[in-house]
């Protein structure tokens, strides 16, 4: 079979790269056992990758012996992206080219405390840097996403009550004081939108909405290629739009918010009689396994979310709606009813019907967006005042006057 030699070598190269990326850094000997390739093959591949500047090597000591440590080649200037979710924390460490060097997930308790969680974030940053053999000084910035609207001017949660115990917490300040690096905080749906806009499904569009369906519902709005946050950061908070006039009281104090109708707690309790106590992850898995109850609950949620998204799209007229978040892992089961509800309610113009597509970056979107925010703002921060601007989906195209650069971060004094 012609070309099979080449494709085998390609596959082995890909395997080596994947393995280095997964472990952050490892010696050639470890690389051989981790991949199952021979030491000679690994040595050859590493030499090729070194020449192609994909990886870098340095001398190290393992178990008292000299060894060659292989890490991904990194551009100067590392950044960290953190997504603080309601029940888990995602952290990614990457270089200036968005090349991910290390990542970690930490399950979090219900109503986790700001002090404990932020302490864990600081320690995770330091440990991940150690894992890839980097120093804290190599870090240009840290981006943090939270599942609540954030005031762009202060980096503090701007809607009291929705994240219990996190109101008035100076998130950026607490982390930058510990680590001495600039920290930027934003709403997670905005960060998901930013990530999809620069690296994911939003690349072809200048006007789109990113709807994040997780424990709660949120949306990030991209207009003219940049994320629109609104005056106090609550733009796109469709989780708090009213969908049930006589519904339950929401954490925000209003009645019948979308979150109270399709939030994870409501979905879980809808299944409690038939299925016992489930988690959001169980529901997603149930849908994958073809469980009729879980499927029904997700479809119905999609229909309700669709009506709320439809209202929003009438206001902002996006070209596309991108659906992400944990529940979007159920793919068309969630997305089809959202699409149908939107198409039913939104006037279809002669130009084109609104597209409703799944997110491309999956569960990593928010942390990736936090990373992108840190890289972009750390750069503009370093530039002379007034020169900074939002990261744009399509650089080089100027869509009119830009808003002043956000100062949602905290920069420690030198």
């Amino acid at each position, binding site marked *: 079979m012609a070309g099979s030699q080449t494709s085998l070598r390609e596959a082995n190269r890909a395997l080596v790269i994947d393995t280095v990326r997964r472990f952050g850094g490892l010696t050639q000997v470890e690389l051989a*056992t981790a991949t199952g390739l021979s030491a000679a093959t690994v040595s050859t591949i590493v030499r090729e990758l070194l020449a192609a500047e994909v990886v870098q090597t340095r001398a190290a000591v393992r178990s008292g012996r000299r060894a060659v440590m292989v890490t991904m080649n990194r551009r100067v200037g590392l950044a960290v992206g953190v997504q603080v979710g309601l029940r888990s924390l995602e952290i990614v460490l990457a270089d200036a080219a968005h090349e991910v060097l290390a990542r970690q997930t930490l*399950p979090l308790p219900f109503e986790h405390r700001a002090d404990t969680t932020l302490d864990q974030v600081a320690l995770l940053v330091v440990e991940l840097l150690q894992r890839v053999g980097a120093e804290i000084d190599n870090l240009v910035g840290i981006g943090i996403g939270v599942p609540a609207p954030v005031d762009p001017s202060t980096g503090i949660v701007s809607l009291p009550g929705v994240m219990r115990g996190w109101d008035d917490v100076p998130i950026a300040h607490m982390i930058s004081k510990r680590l001495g690096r600039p920290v930027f905080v934003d709403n997670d749906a905005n960060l998901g939108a930013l990530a999809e806009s620069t690296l994911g499904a939003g690349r072809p569009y200048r006007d789109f909405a990113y709807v994040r369906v997780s424990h709660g519902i949120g949306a990030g709005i991209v207009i003219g290629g940049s994320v629109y946050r609104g005056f106090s950061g609550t733009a796109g908070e469709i989780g708090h739009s009213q969908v049930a006039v006589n519904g339950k009281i929401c954490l925000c104090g209003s009645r019948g918010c979308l979150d109270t109708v399709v939030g994870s707690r409501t979905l879980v309790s809808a299944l409690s009689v038939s299925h016992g106590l489930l988690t959001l992850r169980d529901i997603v898995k149930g849908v994958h396994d073809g469980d009729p109850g879980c499927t029904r609950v997700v479809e119905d949620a999609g229909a309700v979310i669709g009506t709320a998204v439809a209202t929003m799209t009438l206001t902002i007229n996006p070209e596309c709606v991108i659906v992400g978040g944990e529940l979007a892992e159920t793919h068309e089961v969630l997305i089809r009813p959202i699409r149908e509800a939107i198409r039913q309610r939104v006037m279809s113009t002669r130009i084109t019907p609104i597209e409703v597509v799944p997110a491309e970056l999956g569960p990593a979107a928010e942390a990736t967006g936090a990373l992108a925010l840190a890289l972009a703002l750390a750069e503009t921060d370093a530039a002379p005042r007034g020169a900074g601007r939002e990261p744009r989906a399509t650089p080089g195209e100027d869509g009119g006057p830009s808003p002043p650069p956000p100062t949602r971060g905290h920069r420690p004094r030198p």
Partner: protein
Amino acid sequence: MARIEDRGRVPLIRLRHVTKTFGAVEALVGFDLQVHPHQVVALVGDNGAGKSTVAKIISGVLQPDTGLLELNGTPTQIPGPSAALSAGIAAVFQDLALCDNLDVTANIFLGRALHRHGLLDEDAMEQAARRTLAMLNSDIPSVRTPVRALSAGQRQSVAIARALISNPRVIVLDEPTAALSVVQTAEVLSHIERLRDVGLGVIFISHNMNDVRAVADRIEVMRHGRNNGSFEAATASYETVLAAITGAVRLQHAV
């Protein structure tokens, strides 16, 4: 793989009114516990509350004085650790009991090495070790690394992998996150989520309320060998659970 509908019917393991005393020490008094497939049950309580005694009874190390132990609804005796293993119960104790000088594979297959034609089947063992560690999403690069070269978190995953090799249905983890760094804790907690996802019943013993509330479905509070409250981890606040641990809130028990 356990289907979701199978849950909540017959528990994998159930302790009914179990009592265990050591002289004047009442380690367990009328203790009840049940664990279903696809469920993480956390045992929390002060030092000496009886958490480890429960772990030892379930894994066959200790025998209850009175009370009943049921497996899949059938009353059973677990006379020793090997009986527990063949009944589908595996345990990882605090000290891990790993051999530092042996590599990861040898530790995982310690005492039950695979043979082929009368010789050690190194390949099969290595593959199984790699598969189990991959299932746990473990970050141990090589199954030929001696255990002494591993971090505390990696050692914990080797110990868990060793417990998994016997294909258990229930796994008991005694303080798996004690003395681990945040990254290592994150790994072990992720392992616990994985074990639950593949349908195991997990008994997670810990002092750390943060870790317990992060991954448990149900939190059973123990106080002086007795049940002192059972909470749904998805909705129980720190305050309620802590009140039960410290005895600020007490369940009424017959003396």
